[in-house]
């Protein structure tokens, strides 16, 4: 079965259900007396977009990037730095941030895709840490302490103001839907099939006549840009950026979200981000040392639940 929206399959119902839940949350959560969860779900959606982008290269393309969070940071810092210099216009800020992510994605992909396997893991990690240390040493932009963003991006339309919490929430929601739709179109296109083919057997794809390096590089850039958009949204939502948003544990968490939800499935990364963030909220309530439970949980998921949540719920429906 091709991972796509096939109305008969269980995963497409899951996709629909999750999206409906996100759509009604700003009204449902206050009605249940938990208005705090509106913020949590906004974060879940931002992380979902980042995880979806990682899923393109990792789940479908077999490129295990351990530095994907760097694009969150670059997208976020582009907004933060522009805003510090008094540039709040979204029509300039956002294309700028996306452009920077695309260029960095091109350079990083160009270098790291020359290598394979564990070398690729370590190079993406190292390249991401390079930008992390750059942000730490940038004193004019707050170094370790991060950068406050006083004014969210302005679109110059009176009724469309990101400072309005509901508008912000539904902008994030719209981007999540757009990201899912884009991913569905990409993985089922000729381009997506080449990228997926190169995961299964790169040599054979080359022998058939596809210059797979170019396809993989393009996928890497697309993923970088999409993750950068998540960074743009995060910067606007939190009104704050700091080096921590692109430190290497964040890249590890992104990988875990994808695996937890189900690698190489459309809705998997969203489910993974949802379970990950809700579980960490719950564990944080129980103990400040919540990692002592979370760490072994992660190991157990790796050992016993390779298909992730989507895999568990759709047993019998073979993936791909």
């Amino acid at each position, binding site marked *: 079965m091709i991972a796509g929206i096939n109305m008969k399959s269980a995963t497409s119902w899951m996709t629909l259900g999750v999206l409906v839940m996100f759509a009604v949350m700003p009204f449902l959560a206050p009605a249940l007396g938990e208005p705090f969860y509106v913020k949590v779900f906004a974060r879940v959606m931002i992380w979902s977009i980042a995880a979806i982008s990682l899923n393109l290269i990792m789940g479908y393309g077999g490129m295990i990037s351990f530095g994907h969070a760097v694009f969150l940071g670059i997208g976020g810092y582009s907004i933060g730095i522009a805003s510090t210099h008094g540039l709040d216009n979204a029509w300039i800020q956002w294309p700028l941030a996306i452009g920077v992510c695309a260029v960095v994605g091109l350079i990083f992909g160009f270098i790291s895709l*020359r290598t394979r396997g564990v*070398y690729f893991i370590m190079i993406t990690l190292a390249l991401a*840490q390079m930008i992390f240390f750059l942000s730490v040493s940038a004193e004019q932009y707050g170094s370790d302490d991060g950068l406050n963003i006083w004014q969210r991006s302005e679109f110059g339309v009176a009724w469309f103001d990101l400072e309005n919490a509901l508008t912000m929430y539904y902008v994030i929601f719209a981007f999540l839907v757009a990201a899912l739709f884009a991913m569905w179109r990409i993985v089922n296109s000729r381009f997506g099939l080449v990228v997926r083919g190169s995961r299964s057997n790169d040599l054979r794809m080359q022998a058939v006549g596809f210059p797979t390096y170019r396809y993989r590089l393009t996928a890497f850039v697309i993923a970088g840009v999409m993750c950068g958009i998540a960074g743009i949204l995060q910067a606007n939502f939190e009104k704050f950026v700091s080096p921590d948003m692109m430190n290497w544990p964040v890249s590890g968490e992104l990988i875990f979200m994808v695996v937890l939800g189900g690698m190489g499935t459309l809705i998997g990364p969203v489910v993974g981000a949802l379970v990950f963030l809700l579980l960490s909220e719950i564990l944080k309530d129980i103990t400040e040392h919540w990692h002592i439970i979370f*760490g072994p949980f*992660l190991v157990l998921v790796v050992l016993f639940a*390779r298909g992730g949540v989507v895999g568990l719920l759709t047993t019998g429906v073979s993936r791909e």
Partner: protein
Amino acid sequence: MDVSLVVEQFLNGFQLGIILFLMAAGLTLVFGILDMVNLAHGSLYMIGAFYGATFAVWTDSFILGVVLMVPAMLVTGIVIERIALRTLYARDHLDQVLATFGLILFFNALTRIIWGPEGVVVPLPDFLNGSVDLAFGIVYPVFRITIIGVGLAVALGLWLLVSHTRIGMLIRAGASNRTMAGALGVNIPMLFTIVFGIGAVLAGLAGLIFAPIQTVFVGMGEDVLIIAFVVIVIGGIGSIRGAFIAAILAGLIDTMGRSFLDVLLLVFLSPNAAESAGPALSSMLIYILMAAILFFRPQGLFPPKGR
């Protein structure tokens, strides 16, 4: 910029290189032989430092702290290997990365519970606390010289172990063809445990000897771990010689870059620009080096033969 400062920074860089080598040697052995990406190696660095610091405070002797740390790390390494890592050898790299990432979270939390969040200060014994006059008025701390000496001794010992002993021969055989070595009667699981134990002790040693300079804190292994990754990628994964050369190279470039890059940049840039670009660029130097080396040699400088 006077000569004594250059020499001093050169020695500092060399000493950082030695620490990186101790980390990278264990990583590259574990990777070369077990084909296993172990992020938790950074936790071993941290645990070693905490063990050593605690023993040093208990026994009131830094030397005894080091001596007691070695068997403690060996046991810890073996226990971790037997319980958590053994099941991961047959898995792909993604599983190994994720599971050992989980172990890092676990060990950081555990360490924070046992030793508290503020870390431990390791007292230095008096005889290591002074400085010596090397020559031409260059004064250098005894402790840093000791680090360099210990590191070189360990490097030599490791080289002798791997290339001139029976166990080293088995390790090399296991690295080049695990199945064949197993078929010829080598107890491969036992070999893996031993290799992992050695790696754990080396990481712990690196953490402990760096501790008096840096203090011991939760998460201290992670920055070093990532630079050690860079080192083994530059050196060629699985190669001890490559790890040594790359570690010294990385240590020198990082330290010298941090001290002198802004001075060098003054030649090309205005003082203001040099002052702001210097620290930013110097923190990126070793990554730029890695990118450059991989561009021309994707397998690193010294890829091990037969793979």
